[in-house]
């Protein structure tokens, strides 16, 4: 089956991202396809490169990044939600005249159309959030 995943909450405060990570790993292990993982609302904060969690804790942005690299996953951060919350890639940094960017490797910033497309193209769209 082809899954689309939506993550609506940021890392650590909420378990949504952890649950989604476990779900995606299990789905891949069972041979399912992940069409796209879309990060919305505070979920965009899962793409930050600036988090420094304690050493004995998980680093969710890095875990997503590694999982994406290993499995060729499409991790998309909503541009409108990201701009509000200070999540920028290099292009967005330049476009808005900011002096730094903070998107972890493996994530990309794009529009809400990517969420709708995931709904159209996936057999199931699964939301992790509040």
């Amino acid at each position, binding site marked *: 089956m082809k899954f689309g995943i939506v993550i609506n909450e940021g890392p650590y405060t909420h378990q949504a991202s952890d649950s989604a990570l476990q779900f995606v790993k299990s789905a891949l292990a069972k041979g399912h396809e992940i069409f796209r993982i879309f990060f919305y*609302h505070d979920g965009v904060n899962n793409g930050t490169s600036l988090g420094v969690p304690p050493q004995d804790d998980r680093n969710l942005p890095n875990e997503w990044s590694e999982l994406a690299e290993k499995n060729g996953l499409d991790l998309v951060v909503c541009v*409108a*939600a990201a701009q509000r919350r200070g999540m920028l890639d290099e292009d967005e940094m330049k476009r808005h005249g900011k002096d730094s960017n903070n998107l972890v490797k493996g994530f990309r910033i794009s529009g*809400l*159309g990517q969420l*709708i497309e995931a*709904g*159209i*193209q996936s057999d199931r769209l699964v939301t992790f*959030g509040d």
Partner: protein
Amino acid sequence: MEEEGIVKKFCYMNRKAPYGTIYALESLEVVLIAAAFDQDISLVFADDGVYQLTKNQDTDGIGMKNFSKTYSALGDYDIKKIYVEKESLEERGLTTDDLQALKYEDEDDDWAEKDSLFVVGRDELSKIINEQDVVLSF
């Protein structure tokens, strides 16, 4: 922006108050984008989400943008199935008189103005949700 002609039933569930969290505003942003995709769109307002459609919202005292007028523009985006859960209204002491009148112009009927807001009971709403291909809950 057609996706190879696939048309799915998309339902956007709105269950939270308009202010206090950003879910209502960002849900509306999704719906406005979604309208460009030629999909079959329904909106549902239930639980505290029914407050999103109330008339005469005034956000001056809380420093938030009042985005409630955007709902009345949904008809222009060809969104004409907006369901409000009857029990959610009753539980909050609200009636349809407290809600904005939401209309659309029917192009198949000489652009006659028609209601796009429907108050439905919980049982009927569950049937409507059950018929959807994609449900996004905010």
